[in-house]
């Protein structure tokens, strides 16, 4: 029999009301990249939490290097050489990279031996080509770099088995390629990687084998070289998946929003938008393509009123809106699906219905003067969750924190679409969602367009930009460097424009 470095046999883990893992088996070989595929809520994270010692399974056995083990806590997991990089980073912003890495495992006695730690971190970073500066503060480095710090944390603790939980969700296309390179380095050095993901392309590009889970059940394990994206999608979702966005050609009308010579500063008071111009027409989806950090965030926040405009103008239906408050812009027809839904779009400790009225609670009939009308609020909440198929355990009374990401996003889309806006600003609307939910989001955006609304779609995923947009603007260093039609361009050309090597404007 083949020797596995980790073998989880017949794991069952129950939570009150649900079975998160039912009789799941996972076999990890030494030196392989093993993908764990499944939609949100399929039980991937639960299974890995069992392996990492956060949860104890009710049934099943775990073997590490052939020996049966009882992983009661993450400390024991570390002793067994198992390390996990979480989706949500656990870093201290105003500590340096080294300080974060050694936290909880400081070298030296009473006094911390920083020199030794720094040397070790540097060596590890060099060995695996991570390129991390040990003395930078976390708050000063990019998200991609922060992730590498998390990886270094795991390496520093001498992990042989590295679990990466949805590592590409926060990365740009380039960073994803680099991460795949890093994972391959690990495998080459004899380390084993478990990659939790629902992105099929990345699995094809990086993994050796893939184990698929669906609704807590083990579906199967396949060799990546013997399979295709379509086959994996079918295993994951349980039905055939259509990757193409179903849409008729756009029928764009007149300009509804025009942005002229827009200058906006970022958090650090540096110019993020430097004279940006664009126009958005009725009945079209305008995709903004670009690498993260080229002013997308600032553009979106300037339009929605969350960020001050230094110079230039934003004109909605012939009238400038730059001096309007956020609420006034909402009333005038600007809806917004933010990239960071948990921080920006939702009050996580509010009930679902309270979140659904976040922008409209002051309007009749949801309130009368100063008084909230709870009956009307609940009515509206029910209507939205029916209309937009938002699923949760306790309906409108569910605390949003307890809902899945996909359903949170459906609730946000429901709230924003129900505003009946002129312009829908959608910033990375499919981030962190599973295939089914992404299809849903795209369908809703196309529907809005077909109703004659304008959609401004910001995304870092070129596939999404290419398949959903009717027209594409490329943003580079705070300016639009390309205005092209998706059917007349290629990913390669977009890539050139995204890096500033080429400029194209539509006649």
């Amino acid at each position, binding site marked *: 029999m083949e020797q596995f470095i980790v073998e989880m046999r017949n794991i069952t883990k129950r*939570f009150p009301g649900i079975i998160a893992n039912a009789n799941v088996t996972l076999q990890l070989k030494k030196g392989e990249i093993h993908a764990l595929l499944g939609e949100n809520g399929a039980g991937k994270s639960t299974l890995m939490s069992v392996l990492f010692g956060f949860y104890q399974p009710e049934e099943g056995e775990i073997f590490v290097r052939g020996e049966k083990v009882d992983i009661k806590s993450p400390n024991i997991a570390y002793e067994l050489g198992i390390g996990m990089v979480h989706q949500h980073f656990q870093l201290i912003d105003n500590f340096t990279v080294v300080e974060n890495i050694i936290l909880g495992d400081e070298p030296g006695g009473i006094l911390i031996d920083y020199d030794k730690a720094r040397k070790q971190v540097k060596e590890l970073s060099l060995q695996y080509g991570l390129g991390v500066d040990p003395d930078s503060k976390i708050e000063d480095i990019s998200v991609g770099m922060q992730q590498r710090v998390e990886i270094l944390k795991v390496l520093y603790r001498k992990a042989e088995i590295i679990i990466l939980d949805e590592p590409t969700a926060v990365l740009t296309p380039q960073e994803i390629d680099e991460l795949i390179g890093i994972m391959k380095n690990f495998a080459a050095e004899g380390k084993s990687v478990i990659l939790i993901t629902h992105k099929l392309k990345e699995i094809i590009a990086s993994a050796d084998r893939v184990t698929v889970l669906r609704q807590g059940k083990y579906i199967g394990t396949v060799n990546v070289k013997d399979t295709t994206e379509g086959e994996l999608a079918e295993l994951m979702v349980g039905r055939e998946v259509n990757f193409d966005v179903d849409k008729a050609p756009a029928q764009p009308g007149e300009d509804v929003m025009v942005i002229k010579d827009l200058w906006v500063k970022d958090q650090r008071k540096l110019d993020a938008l430097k004279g940006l111009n664009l126009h958005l027409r009725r009945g079209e989806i305008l995709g903004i393509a670009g690498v993260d950090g080229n002013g997308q965030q600032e553009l979106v926040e300037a339009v929605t009123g969350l960020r001050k405009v230094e110079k230039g103008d934003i004109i909605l239906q012939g009238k400038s809106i730059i001096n309007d408050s*956020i609420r006034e812009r909402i009333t005038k027809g600007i809806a*917004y699906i933010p990239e960071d839904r948990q*921080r*920006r779009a939702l009050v996580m400790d*509010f009930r679902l219905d309270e979140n659904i009225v*976040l922008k409209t609670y002051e309007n009749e009939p949801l309130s009368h003067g100063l008084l909230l009308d709870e009956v009307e609020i609940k009515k509206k909440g029910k209507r939205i969750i029916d209309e937009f198929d938002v699923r949760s*355990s306790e309906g409108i009374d569910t605390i949003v924190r307890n809902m899945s990401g996909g359903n949170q996003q459906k609730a946000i889309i429901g709230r924003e679409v129900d505003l009946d806006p002129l312009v829908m600003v959608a910033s990375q609307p499919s981030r962190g969602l599973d295939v089914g939910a992404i299809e849903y989001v795209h369908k809703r955006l196309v529907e809005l367009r077909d109703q004659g609304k304008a959609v401004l779609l910001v995304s870092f995923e070129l596939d999404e930009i290419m398949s959903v947009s009717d027209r594409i603007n490329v943003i580079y260093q705070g300016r639009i460097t390309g205005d092209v039609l998706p059917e007349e361009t290629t990913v390669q050309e977009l890539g050139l424009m995204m890096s500033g090597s080429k400029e194209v404007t539509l006649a």
Partner: protein
Amino acid sequence: MLKKRSHLTLSLIAILLSFVVASVVMLISGISPLSFFLSLIRTMTGMNLRAIGKEGFFNARYLGEFIQMAMPIILTGLSVGFAFRTGLFNIGAEGQVIMGSVGAVAVGILFKLPFYIHLPLAIFVAALCGALWGWIPGYFKAKFGVHEVVVTIMMNYTALYLGNFIIKALPGSDNQKTVKLAATSLLHSKFLRQLTGNSRLHWGFIVVIIALFVYHFIIEKTTFGYELRAVGFNKDAAEYGGIKVSSRIAYSMAIAGAFAGLAGAMLTLGTFDYGRVIGTFENYGFDGIAVALLGGNTAFGIFFGGLLFGGLKSSQTLMQASGIPLEIAIIVSALIILFVAMKNGIDLVFEWMDARKRSKDESH
């Protein structure tokens, strides 16, 4: 998703644990825990369990004094709780209480009015002074991003010395206190006093009850309360929803200050009938922090939390009479806070016990 144990259960457990630990402390220091609990019960119910069926079993005076003591603490609890709901930490209730008292005293001394105008005016001015003292740090936070904890702590001292200065400057004051306030401005009640064996109980409890309802109403039923809660939970999402976050912060602190100002009115118009020069803080505001924490920032919870802390504070005299040092009551208060703060830990212990029980059940 695991269901969180309710705040009520955890608070009760925290209280129970603090009693247990305090009993151990008392046993070690040779004090009878029984006398402690009997004194506490006697303070909070008026009943002397040592004299069941005998004369002197029930003494309403204890009850009256206890309620009188709990009133300002409930109000400062509401003050701190209100700010907490907006995500603000109002350490300044202490200073707001002082400014409220001073405002009430000034109205009581300087005006000659019929009682139906004089008393409401004095209460209103007390709330207004407290509100002003709360609004200033709120405004600083909203406008300049200065942390409210820093400003409110400084304003506590400002209130202490400014308050004493004003008290001494009022006509007829000496170095200790002002002249008596006009009777038309007082909450005193001959009826309540007689009913409770000549305690200092006064009409203020009506103000407290109204305040509790107003608190609940604003927070749960109004658009303003909705905005405050949204800001308290997630400022970024509130801003995204179009809520004017800074103005809500300033208003929230002002309303919190008004509740504390009312506590000041309870003291000067109810418990006493003159303004006092105070040497140091009397901790009403700080008790309010504890009460809000214990009560989970709801009107209902703060009411019961305020009663408990009022009971502990008011039982100190009785305890001293039976040879229990007053520090014991302070230890109990501190332990309650400690255990409430540890509620996540307590929750974990329970989860662990549940899990053990389940695995035992399954193995059978």
